[in-house]
């Protein structure tokens, strides 16, 4: 994206942009062969099979089933993003303010799930939420419910499990943003007359907006294409786009239609990234007396 050719220095020597390119070549090759090529093949098929027209795309929007899956995907992704933000901000704040052992423990608590398979974490939610699961046992034992509550295969369960799985992607950018704010800003705000909450609202929150934006964007985009968790916790009733694509490909072998779904998703994601990019830049110029 930079307009200047990129060179780099190592051990006092400056290497030419060609050397930079050479170092990036393996990555670029893998990206082209394993990602861009199949993606373009798929998108190409979605436009040209059976005939060269937009029929496959029309089908995505025409049929209520697919439209419903798409809207559900958007709704669940939005809810997951909000939940992750509400859960993640206080946690990131706590981590940014802690030192020593507490800091280490909290960071591990956030990072450990990232190093654990999504499948494992999703099965943990199945164990918790199923008919004879831990939650229902506790509720029944406490006499709060007479019969086991249906948690699994509800939208709430999907949102809950996905929020948990995606939480680190919210916490880490927020933590980085909060960590970058010197304590003296908060102190200055306070001594100038801002109570704790006012200092947060007028100083800390605006300064972390880029972190909020990137955390939200990351979680929302990952949620849009999430497969394992909604498939297992949500079941067929709560089908999301990724599951739909998988079904079209493995069960119906309808590659062109899958390509169309992916094309729609991709276009949507690209628009979102562009909008967010613009917003983050804009916020630098917003301010009032």
């Amino acid at each position, binding site marked *: 994206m930079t307009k200047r050719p990129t060179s780099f220095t190592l051990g006092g020597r400056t290497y030419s942009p060609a050397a930079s390119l050479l170092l990036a070549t393996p990555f670029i090759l893998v990206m082209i062969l394993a990602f861009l090529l199949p993606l373009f093949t798929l998108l190409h098929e979605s436009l040209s099979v059976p005939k060269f027209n937009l029929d496959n795309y029309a089908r995505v929007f025409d049929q209520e089933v697919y439209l419903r899956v798409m809207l559900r995907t958007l709704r669940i992704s939005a809810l997951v993003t909000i939940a992750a933000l509400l859960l993640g901000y206080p946690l990131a704040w706590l981590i940014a303010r802690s030192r020593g052992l507490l800091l280490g423990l909290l960071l591990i608590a956030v990072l450990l799930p990232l190093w654990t398979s999504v499948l494992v974490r999703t099965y943990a939610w199945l164990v918790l939420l199923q008919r004879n699961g831990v939650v229902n046992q506790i509720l029944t034992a406490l006499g709060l419910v007479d019969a086991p509550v249906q948690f699994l295969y509800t939208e709430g369960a999907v949102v809950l499990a996905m929020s948990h799985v995606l939480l680190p992607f919210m916490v880490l950018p927020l933590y980085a943003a909060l960590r970058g704010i*010197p304590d003296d800003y908060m*102190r200055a*705000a306070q*001594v*100038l*007359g801002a109570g704790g909450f*006012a200092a947060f609202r*007028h100083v800390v929150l605006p300064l972390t907006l880029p972190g909020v934006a990137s955390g939200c964007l990351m979680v929302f985009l990952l949620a849009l294409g999430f497969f394992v968790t909604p498939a297992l916790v949500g079941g067929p009733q709560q089908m999301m786009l990724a599951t739909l694509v998988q079904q079209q490909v493995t069960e119906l072998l309808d590659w062109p239609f899958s390509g169309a779904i992916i094309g729609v998703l991709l276009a949507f994601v690209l628009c979102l990234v562009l909008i967010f990019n613009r917003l983050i830049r804009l916020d630098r110029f917003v301010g*009032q*007396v």
Partner: protein
Amino acid sequence: MSKYLHERRNSSIAVGSAGQVAVRDLVKRYADVVAVNGVSLDVRGGEFLALLGPSGSGKTTILMNIAGFDFPDSGRIEISGRDVTWMSPDKRDLGMVFQRYTLFPHMSVLDNIAFPLRMRKVGRAEREKRARAALQTVRLDGYGDRRPAQLSGGQQQRVALARAIVYNPQVLLMDEPLSALDKNLREEMQIEIKHLQRKLGVTVIFVTHDQTEALTMADRVAVLNLGALQQIGAPKDLYEAPATEFVAGFIGESNFWPGIATSDAAANEQLAVQLEGGEIAQACAATPLRKGTQVRLAVRPERVRLGPAAAGGVGGTVEEAIYAGSVTTLMLRTKGPILRARLSAGDETAEPRPGADLSLTWRPQDARAYPTS
């Protein structure tokens, strides 16, 4: 009786005490380190007080307790006669300028200055008017629409100053606000802050480790070391009559010469001291001394008078003469330690050459004897 007196004193403080700051028996520990060990200070309304000390002296801790960013283990803080020991910073109505630049980067210069007014629910038109006036006070009119990042360090600290005075606080705290600036700018800002303080009549408590800064700016200086108050007084008093050996060494330069008191002496009374090396010199007791007490004599280099050898006083031989323009420093070998003496340029005395034997004298009040404990 004493309790009654104490209360009366407090109530007299509460009357017409705008801008007074009182620190009472402040103690603050961090883990097993005592940062402040029972310090009491009375800052008068409209006074410029400097808290001076090396790092670890507790000066910043005292300021943090006055500001309310930290709370004492024991002791009290009063501002304008109000006990604020446990009050949160936003309720204390203080202005503060920090060591590091703390202008909010997401607000314009004018919004930064208007921020404390906004927190005080001042109307938009009024706060813009007052913010512009404050900006003018620090001679930055026309910079209101800039971002802090577009200003130089000195300009940023001036804006921070404007932000700290725009709501007319009675007390202004400054935590080494000039330490990040280069020397010329620092001296310019010192004068500017001093003028502004006189004009506004605001009480200033100014933390610094730079003694020149403290002496030039402050009405009174409180010297701290290892969490204890060493001395508080006007700059001239600190320099002329340091209360402790630490102050004698920390403010300006002193020669130290060990010796033994030859008689009892009350504080500020003259006595003869037998110096290490056997000679006798007249001195002035900094604290009451008993005969036979081990003391250290502190003499400022520019107070050492030079005369021809055998003219009385202690003997010294010129080891080295260091010329530095306005002054020449002589290193003198004596029967005790090496002494430094300072000659001003244009001094009537002929410039002694290395190897010359001289007699060294000083006025008794220029040699202060501190007991070595």
